[in-house]
């Protein structure tokens, strides 16, 4: 019997497998396929202050071993999420939820987190700083250490829940950003978000996505995620939720060896709605083959 339980900044999860924000909706479609309680947790769709339609379509393009998305944070807004979706999710999943929070200003992040802090069902707040800072020429909050730290501090001031800052991979030095978040009080970091990409429609001679660029996710991303988790693990001492391209139980172990305490699974949920269930079910067997009786012992094992 392998002990699959892990702990994230004091929050215990029965296993490290967590569907990634934006790829699992509010869980409803997957709950038709399997009992969500077999998951470690789940990170629900990124939430902003106002309801958002998101970007025009097409929002999706295929790439070798992956996909681009430019959904653009479609969501009903934080108040509707708290009033309707959180209670609903709590019916489908009895463990601690991860609330993924977006924002377009430091104040918006803080306000969203202050509100979500009131939800007992939420165990962890995951703050997505890959959003453009509308007060600062549209540069992403996650693209420089100062603004990443600013968001961290603002959010920490309004919640007592553990805060995981979700980092963008589109930077020269992700470890530096992670360190800035740690110094500003973050309880953990989540990485990686999608890598910026583009596909072009040869016939129309235009970018395929209406938004032109989109975020790359899926297996293509795995080696970049492993490298970044490894780098960040060397730079910080707070826990890491690793993600990017995970498609099987071995990939979960690979990201944990690189330094992750738990692992999110994104795009493959879209390709295979049963993916997370299969990964959870395979995890014990893979651990046994690797001679591991407590999966949390894998964390950072490759350093």
């Amino acid at each position, binding site marked *: 019997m392998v002990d699959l339980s892990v702990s994230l900044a004091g929050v215990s999860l029965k296993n490290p497998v967590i569907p990634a924000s*934006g*790829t*699992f*909706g509010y869980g*409803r*479609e*997957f709950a*038709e*396929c399997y009992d969500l309680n077999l998951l470690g947790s789940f990170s629900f*769709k990124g939430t902003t202050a106002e309801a958002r*339609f*998101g970007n025009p*379509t*097409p*929002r*999706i*393009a*295929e*790439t*070798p*071993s*992956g*996909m681009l*998305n430019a*959904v653009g944070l*479609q969501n009903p807004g934080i108040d509707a999420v708290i009033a309707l979706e959180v209670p609903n999710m709590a019916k489908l999943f009895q463990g601690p939820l991860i609330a993924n929070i977006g924002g377009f200003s430091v104040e918006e992040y803080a306000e969203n987190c202050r509100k979500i802090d009131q939800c007992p069902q939420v165990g962890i707040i995951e703050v997505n700083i890959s959003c453009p800072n509308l007060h600062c020429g549209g540069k992403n909050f996650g693209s420089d250490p100062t603004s990443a730290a600013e968001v961290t501090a603002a959010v920490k001031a309004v919640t007592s829940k553990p805060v995981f800052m979700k980092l963008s991979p589109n930077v020269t030095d992700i470890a530096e950003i992670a360190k800035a978040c740690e110094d500003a009080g973050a309880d953990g970091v989540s990485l990686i978000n999608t890598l910026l990409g583009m596909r072009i429609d040869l016939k129309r001679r235009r970018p395929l996505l209406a938004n032109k660029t989109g975020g790359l996710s*899926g*297996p293509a991303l795995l080696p970049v995620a492993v490298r970044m988790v490894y780098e960040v693990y060397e730079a910080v001492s707070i826990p890491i939720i690793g993600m990017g391209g995970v498609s099987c139980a071995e990939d979960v172990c690979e990201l944990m060896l690189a330094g992750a305490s738990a692992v999110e699974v994104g*795009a493959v*949920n*879209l*390709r*295979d*709605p*049963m993916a997370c269930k299969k990964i959870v079910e395979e995890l014990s067997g893979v651990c046994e083959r690797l001679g591991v009786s407590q999966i949390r012992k894998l964390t950072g094992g490759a350093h």
Partner: protein
Amino acid sequence: MIETPLTLIHKKQLTRDVWELALAGDTSAITAPGQFVNLLLEGRFLRRPISVCDWDKDILLLLVRVAGKGTQQLCRSEVGTSFDTLMGLGNGFDPARSTGKSVLVGGGIGSAPLYGLAKRMATAGDAPAVAMGFNSGDDAFYLKEFAELGCQISLATVDGSLGRKGLVTDLLPHTGCGYGFVCGPEPMLKAVWGCEQLTGGQFSFEERMGCGFGACMGCTCKTRYGSKRICKDGPVLDKEEIVW
């Protein structure tokens, strides 16, 4: 929705780029014509959404147009190939909501799901009129199949090589029908939507999809009643809720 393997048991080339594929497996998740399946193809990350053309309890019929590398791979697959499939996706057409004499309006490969609808309407004793548009006569398919259901068929081709020269919208005034079940490329949907004699109808849309089952918000469109996901709340939308 179920995830299930389907085995290709028959294929036939209908036109230069359209194939008829029959797949065997558990079709129990399909509940209405106009629903679609999402097929996993070896070596492609995203699934390919294809409308149910027809089905019985253990055979699914698809009509597939070779549009790119994935559909080419699908149509080149050998009989015996198995495909992991998500089944019973989308809402589908609901003939019970028709408010008048019905015409099925198909553009190109968009006629595929209309066949299953026509068959069910015919079985219920009410074979609908069918209006189909193609680029040319060589591209037309399933004329005999629709005729065998007892449907009255009118045809338009862009080059005039079969039926009336022109677009499918040119046919509608002559059908005398006030309610449409419509599937085809978006410009055709829009043109049919704008036809005066249609007082109501159900329109099937296409969009690039991440999941096909409502999880990713990849396929959202605006309607009069808010955002809808083409894959889950559609692909069929009511005429009156559509905004362009």
